[in-house]
Structures are given as C-alpha cells and as structure tokens.
C-alpha cells in the first residue's frame, strides 16, 4: 500500500442541509482529491465536526483551501491541523482470511495493534482496530500475511488535546435566538 502525506483539515459546521455539498463543491473547484472525510455531531446541538484529509496540498494551496472553507457561511471555524497538537484516530474493520488454525494468530496480531476480533466465520474473521492512520496502514500490511478479503476504513477524525475553538461566537444557534418570537402554530 502506497503511503501518502495527508493534509488534515478540521472544521465545525452548522448542521444544515447543503453544507457538505458546499464544502465538496469548493474542494472540487480547487481540484483537490479528498482521501477521507468524517462528519458527526458534537456536544453542541446543531454543530457538527468535520475532518477532511487530502493528499498533496502543495505550497500555499492548503492555506488557500482553509481560507476558502472559512468563507462558507455555515462553517464558523476551520483550521489546518496537519501539524497541530491533535489526537488523530481512525477506525478500520478488516476481513481477514483465517482457517481454524490461523484464528489464534489473527487474534494475537489484532491485540498487537490494540484491536479485537468481533466476528468469526468458517474461513475468515473480522477485526476492529482504532488508531492513527499510519498504524492502521501498518496493521493492514501485517494482516496481508493471512490474506485480506476486505477493508472498511472510516477516515480520520481529530480532536484537539486541549480546548477547542468551535467558532461558536460566529454563529447564533436556535436556542440563543429570541425566545417566544415566531408564531408557529
């Protein structure tokens, strides 16, 4: 498997229809190729966390794309976290070929990578591993000795080790809007 230098962007977005479309439309316009993208809710109602990794952000292009994403109205905060102090994790499900006598070895190998076996069939097992993208890469390489019949990777998701600026001062969420106004039946 080829190793690529990935640039990672973290963005917080107002969870509205069309935000992802806008983001991807922008990335397409700049002719980037998205390697992974993960989106999920945060502890703030209405705000989603997005982690996007690209290959090959040459020169100032990565800075450019961050600046452009920052202009999307519903995205109050975005930053390049490639070299930032963040925790970067990815989850992988691996379908490993395993005859009954391989099972113990597959289980042991999974444990080396801090993973576990979550399914066993007659000729294969499914292993779940969470880790840094590089560790996932090397885990997949290691399991190739047994034979890999399938890989499902989620893509990276990142979180700052310390406090995070979610750009909440740049957005007025529903509960902070004028109470009791609006006369919806």
């Amino acid at each position: 498997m080829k190793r690529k230098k990935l640039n990672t962007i973290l963005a917080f977005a107002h969870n509205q229809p069309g935000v992802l479309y806008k983001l991807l439309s922008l990335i397409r316009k700049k002719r980037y190729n998205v390697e992974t993208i993960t989106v999920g809710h945060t502890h703030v109602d209405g705000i989603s966390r997005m982690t996007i990794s690209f290959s090959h952000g040459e020169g100032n292009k990565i800075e450019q794309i961050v600046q452009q994403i920052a202009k999307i109205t519903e995205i109050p905060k975005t930053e390049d976290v490639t070299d930032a102090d963040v925790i970067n994790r990815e989850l992988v499900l691996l379908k490993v070929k395993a005859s009954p006598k391989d099972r113990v070895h597959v289980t042991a190998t999974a444990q080396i990578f801090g993973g576990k076996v979550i399914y066993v069939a007659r000729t294969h097992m499914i292993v779940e591993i969470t880790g840094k993208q590089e560790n996932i890469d090397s885990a997949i390489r290691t399991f190739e000795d047994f034979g890999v019949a399938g890989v499902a990777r989620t893509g990276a998701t990142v979180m700052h080790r310390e406090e995070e600026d979610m750009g909440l001062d740049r957005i007025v969420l529903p509960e902070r809007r004028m109470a009791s106004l609006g006369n919806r039946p």
Partner: protein
Amino acid sequence: MPMARRKKTIKGAELMCRSLVEEGVTYLFGYTGGAIMPVYDAFPKFPQLRHIMVRHEQAAAFAAQGMARATGKPGVCIATSGPGATNLMTGIADAHMDSIPLVAITGQVATSVIGTDAFQESDIIGMLVPVTKQSYILDDPYEIPRVVKEAFYLANTGRKGPVNIDFPKDIANAVIEDHGFDTTIRYPVPPPPGIRREQLAQAQTLMAAAKRPIVFVGHGVIQSGAQGEVRHFLERSHMPFACTLHGISALPADHPQCLGMMGMHGTVEANRAIEHADLIIALGMRFDDRVTGKLDEYAKDADVIHVEQDPSEINKNVRATVAIYSDLKPAVAEMTKVVGRKPYKEWYAFAAKNREYWESIDPINRGNGRGDSRNLLMGSVIRKLSDLTDGKDNVVADVGQHQMFAARYYRFHRFNTWFNSGGLGSMGFSVPAAMGVKFARPGERVWVIVGDGSFQMNIQELGTIMEQRIDMKILLLNNNFLGMVRQWQDLFHGSRFVGTPVKNPDFIALAGAYGIAGERVSEGKGLEPALRRAMKHKGAYLLEIVTDMEEMILPMIPAGSRFSDMRVTR
C-alpha cells in the same frame, strides 16, 4: 358572548414584499412566470417596490448589478423557477466575480414536488452554490423575514457578493399569523482584525527604504469608500499609483501621481513601473491573472504590502511581505501616519519618459484619429467623448476591445462612474447594467459603450428602454468584428479569423423599431456634432460609429507572459 378576535394573517408572498420594503428596496428587475406569480400578485399592495420588467432574466441580474454598483447597496432581481432562474445565472456569477452585492429571488415549484423533475423545476441552489455567498431555500413561511434580512446582510457585509433566495410557490401562497417574527442574523460576520502594530512597523520600514514604490488602487477602494484616505496617503507620501480595471474612477484620472491602468492592457508607464518597482502597496485588490501575467516573473524585485478584507485573497497569487487583513479605511489611515514624503524624482522621470514614448507612438495621435481603413479608431472616439463630457459622465462598458479603450481613454473625474464586467467578462453586460445605473442616478448622464458583438447579446433590452423611457446614450463602436478575439487571432493564431466576422443588422433601423432615436457616423468629422446631438437629445439615443476593424488595443501583455514581453506596437 364576546366574539373571538380574528387573528391577523399574511400571505408568504406579501411577507416577502414587506421584508424587501423593510430592507429599503425600491427597484426590482425581473420577469414573471408560473412559480413566482404569487409574489408578482402581491406587488400592487407595495407601491414602494417598483418592478422593472426586462425582456430576458439575464438582463434582470445585470440591471440589478448596475443599481448595486451605482448605489453600493444590494440590487434585487427576481425570476421564476426553472429557465427563469437558470437565465439569471450568468449575471449572478458575474456579480460573484466582481464582488457586487445582489439578492436574487427565484421562484420554485411547490415543496411537495421538489425533486420530482416537476414542470419548470431546476435545482437552482445546486447550480448557484459555487457562485453565491449564500443560497436559501425558503421551506418555512415563518422564516421569510429572517432569511430576507440575513440575505441582505450577507450580500453587503465583508466582501460583497450575490445571495440567492429560492421561494417555493406553496410557501408564497401560505397564509400565516402575522406578528412577531424572529429576524436574528444567524451568521454574524466578524470584522477583520485590522493592521497589527508589528505589521505597521514593518510597512513603515519598507516604505522608508523604498526608492521605486507604486500603490495599487483596487475595486476595494471604491467599495469601502476609502478614496479619501487613499488620496490622503498618496498625497502625503507622494508615491505614484496605478489602478486595476475596477479601481478606475476611485481617484481622478488626471491626478498628477496617477500612472493609469495596470495589467494586460495597462499603460506603458504603469506596467514598466510595476516591472521595476521595489515596493508594491496593494489596496483592495486580488492580483488577478490579467493584472499579473506570468506569476513567477511578476514584480520580482518588489516587496508587497497587501491590504485586503478578504483573507483568502492574501497570498493567493502573489506572496505578500506584509499581509494585512483589514478594512481599508483604518489600515490606510494608520499607514498615512507613518509614511514619509519623498520626491521620487528619478522614479517619476522614468514614468514620464514611458508616457512620452507611448504618446509618440499612440495610433490615435496620428492620422486624425483614423486607421488605415480611414475609419475612426475606437481610442479616438472615446477620447473625444471624454473631452466633450469633461470626464464627468457615467460610463458603462461591455466586454471587449471597446471596454479596454474606454478604461484607458476616458479620463474619469468623478468617483465611481465606471462600470463594467471585469472578472467574468460577460458580453451583454452593458445595456442592462446601464439601465440599473440610470435608475440609481436619474439626474446624471449615462453612456453605454458597446461593440457590435456584445450589443446583440442583450439587444432585446431596447424593449425595456422603450417601455420605461430610460434616457441612456448608447455609443456603439461597430467594426463588424468580435474585435478582441480578432486581435488575438491576428497576434497568436496566424490571422485566421474564425468565428469573428459579424454580419450585422441595420442597428439604427432596429432602434427605430423600438422608437429609439439614433444615427450612424462613418466620417471622422461627423463624430463631434453627433456626440453633441446624442447628449442634447431627450431620451435614449443610439449612436453607431463605424470603426477601424484592424485596430488593436495596445500595449498588451500576452496572457501568461512577463511584463518585459509587453507589446507596444502591432
């Protein structure tokens, strides 16, 4: 028994109109149709809104742009769903490229059938996302006041641009209780941080050391109304300045420190100065490829102080030595406090030498302003217009050679009187945009400068001009060619004129059919009296000038070339 008080109600379409009135909208340019009919039906109840019916939706977007460019406030265009909405797209994309505040209202099929390829349905949000600042689909009538308010706020805040509101027919027809709507802006735009102390110190050092500085005046100077601060800075520092295409008319063209327009068709003195500059102070501009030519070779010896309110434009094309993310007014005022005055004698002498050189070879100074064909040169026509109007009229140009001639040869004396499509370069811009400018400035004279190609791209608007009795003067420079493309064919494609000769109609007769007066001038001596007649005439006037087809707009830095490759002669 007391009767239950009837609750006050309002229709979605009326709520839309009322919200527009609350935003101070006076003119809407548009075209009706199936899905937008409820809004049109509500217009009579809101006499504050004056609807101008155009003849094609593209013209509605350009006319709204003309209004926006002349007033600095968002222009409004309105169209129906499907083809009505898609026809607006060119004008909206144009506004996006030139940072023009625009609110486009498009009808949409009823929410119950959205996504089913219903009659006249188009996914206009999907199409407009790349060319708008924000797009809304109103799927809740209670959201109308908030969305309209936010649309105008976003269009006109920070770097300006277009916003689209898609308005489904069932929402427009919905009847809801009328009181106490939530109008909170959800996405407040934070102001730029402004110039930092260390940046100011750095700028001061660079300015103090500069021997060959040049200041760039961009569109941002006009849009932020910073012309006073910029002028003060220039006059205090005595640095020369050049304008981008959209920076023209920010300051008077005859200012002694003005070197004219920069870039592909810029003046010799501006481009030579940029080539040799040791400091560029770029104010409210984005180093577009028409400005820079070949990037790696661009202004190699110059440090760059870039002041911009859109951080995505800083370090995009040209690396800034000092990148100042700020509104122009305060940043320029701060820089004025720390800049010293120098005579720059040799530097101005260099510019003067280049100017004199150009004057000595400028084709309009020879042959009585006529070309080899004995027909008039566009440059000399524009110069004559400039002289007769003292450079004080509003000029709306289309796209092509005539646009560049207008930019170069009209001596603009008044602030923000030059309008054209710079970024997208949309042919067909001028006639509808000028309608918007005229509605915004009814007491002022408005000229359209247009070629025979671009005139025909929105020629149907002669109908609107007739109906609304819009008093604008159309100066049609007719060389029976798509001149700009012809010039490129002449220079770079072995003079193979493919798709550029134009078989034209009798334009004067055509204008006559719309009840618009006009005349055709083919002789040099007829030009001045004809211009005077056009100026004197009450009402629209079409003045067609037969011009030399071989004329080129020079100098020219070929696309992607270095400044040292500038061509000054054919």
